[in-house]
């Protein structure tokens, strides 16, 4: 049965691309696949298409559930569906797994046609720009010349921003949430610790663990634990876990004493059980490299000059991974370029994770913005 407001049962699709894709790193993918999902109906003039870009651990599965698994709710299901803020009665919504991913799109786990073996460590570095280029090929194949909006949170927001720069005439609204125009040194530092956890795991084998029949579970688990610390706020952690003890007393051992330890281990174990370590490494590097102002000697205003879209920018008060200040940098650089910008700086106690939650004001702002997008 379909819950009200739900897109219901969905199924992923696969698009194949034969023309080679030259990547920023200089690498070339001779051919590639993207898996994607769509919700709603593309209208006759293809003017109602919205691309939802995923963040570090997300996928093409944005909304709905799979027939074989009732628990397989899409990662942004609270936003996307009939009557929801991103209303699939109005919009045709596309979710796509990025290149280098581990959910079916061509990535390190795929077979390298040249060797017949998994790419593993030899999979080329991919950047936000490469993802956007690949997404543009998918748009071509779907008959979408111009997106009504490209939307994303965190790393997904960087893709939304990059769309407005790389294909200025192909996106009418760039919707950049809980993101930043580039990572700070502190952001990169967290990513580097996460990578080192994976790279130094003895089961990693330089990235060719598939051939060795191993999985660098410990490294991936540590990487995810670090990530989760940065996604929450101090307040959210205090409220959720505080110093609550598992056993009600100090046991003086290294098993779980505090509930926060239990949470991090659970999240780490869960993630290490399904996510690919090579994808994690590639994706954190894509985050680190993203910096549209780099080619403009750090001048963000100059970098954004070619954007033609309108913008919706949002940030959250307790997000210290991508703080409101980072979004404001983007806002003022866009203002300098006289773009039409809407900026919401929302109160939240949930840290970076806020962008995935359904806070009433946040969703009301998104709903109102989407309602005013003409299709």
């Amino acid at each position, binding site marked *: 049965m379909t819950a009200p407001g739900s897109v219901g049962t969905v199924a992923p699709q696969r698009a194949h691309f034969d023309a080679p894709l030259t990547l920023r790193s200089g690498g070339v993918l001779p051919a590639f696949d993207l898996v994607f999902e769509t919700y709603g109906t593309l209208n006759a003039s293809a003017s109602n298409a919205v691309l939802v870009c995923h963040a570090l651990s997300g996928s093409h599965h944005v909304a709905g559930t799979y027939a074989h698994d009732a628990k397989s709710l899409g990662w942004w299901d609270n936003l996307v569906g009939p009557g929801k803020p991103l209303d699939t009665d109005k919009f045709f919504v596309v979710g796509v797994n990025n290149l280098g991913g581990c959910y079916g799109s061509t990535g390190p786990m795929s077979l390298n046609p040249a060797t017949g073996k998994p790419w593993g460590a030899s999979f080329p570095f991919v950047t936000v720009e490469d993802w956007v280029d690949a997404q543009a090929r998918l748009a071509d194949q779907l008959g979408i010349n111009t997106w009504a909006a490209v939307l994303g949170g965190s790393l997904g927001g960087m893709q939304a921003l990059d769309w407005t720069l790389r294909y200025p005439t192909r996106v009418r609204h760039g919707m950049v949430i809980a993101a930043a125009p580039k990572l700070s040194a502190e952001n990169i530092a967290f990513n580097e610790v996460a990578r080192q956890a994976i790279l130094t795991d003895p089961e990693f084998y330089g990235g060719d663990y598939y051939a060795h029949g191993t999985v660098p579970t410990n490294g991936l688990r540590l990487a995810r634990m670090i990530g989760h610390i940065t996604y929450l706020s101090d307040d959210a952690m205090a409220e959720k876990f505080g110093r609550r003890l598992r056993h009600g007393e100090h046991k003086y051992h290294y098993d779980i004493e505090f509930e926060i330890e239990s949470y991090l281990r659970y999240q780490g174990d869960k993630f290490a059980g399904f996510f690919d370590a090579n994808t994690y490494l590639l994706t954190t590097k894509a985050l680190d490299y993203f910096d549209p102002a780099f080619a403009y000697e750090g001048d963000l205003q100059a970098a954004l000059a070619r954007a033609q879209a309108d913008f919706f920018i949002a940030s959250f008060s307790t997000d210290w991974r991508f703080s409101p200040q980072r979004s404001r940098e983007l806002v003022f650089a866009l203002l300098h370029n006289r773009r039409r910008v809407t900026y919401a700086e929302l109160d939240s106690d949930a840290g970076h994770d806020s962008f995935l939650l359904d806070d009433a*004001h946040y969703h009301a*702002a998104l709903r*109102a913005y989407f309602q005013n997008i003409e299709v």
Partner: protein
Amino acid sequence: MVHLQDVRFDYDVIARWVPQGARVLDLGCGDGSLLRHLMNARGVSGYGIERDTPHVVECIRNDVPVLQIDLEQGLAGFEDAQFDVVVMSQSLQAVKNTEGILAEMLRVGREAIVSFPNFGYWPHRDSLAEGHMPVSRSLPYQWYNTPNVRFFTMSDFEELCAQRGIVVRERFAYDEDREITIDPNNFASVAIYRLGRAAA
């Protein structure tokens, strides 16, 4: 921010003073209705600044570009002379950093337009003479729940402008539906000023 029921004069006078097609920044823009009016009547472009989240959502609903920024932080991030006009309708009395925001308005805008409730309005004086803080159409709050933090008269405001090198280019004072030209500091409930910088 504060909203009068009767904002007709505000909107009409501000629309008259704002040049056609101007770039406008509206501080404390509420639900965005003034900026929407200026967009429709004068073809302006620009942004509203608003702190309060429900108002921000209303602006988005009204298709008015809004930036959620707390004015107490000033206008850091905006460039000098980035706008033709910076408007502040019925909000100056709700900002603590009065001097700072006035200076910022005339840094970011070539001109500034501000309106505010005139504390010198005679019924307010009567209230005080009777021993009570005034409550009126233009000051519709009790002392204990008012969002207003600065209480000043037209004369006070003009004195501050004179001291800070701010030139009053035009002034319009009214009470309910009447323009007040005689002794406005006594008879006007609301005053609107068009301000500029004295030529260096």
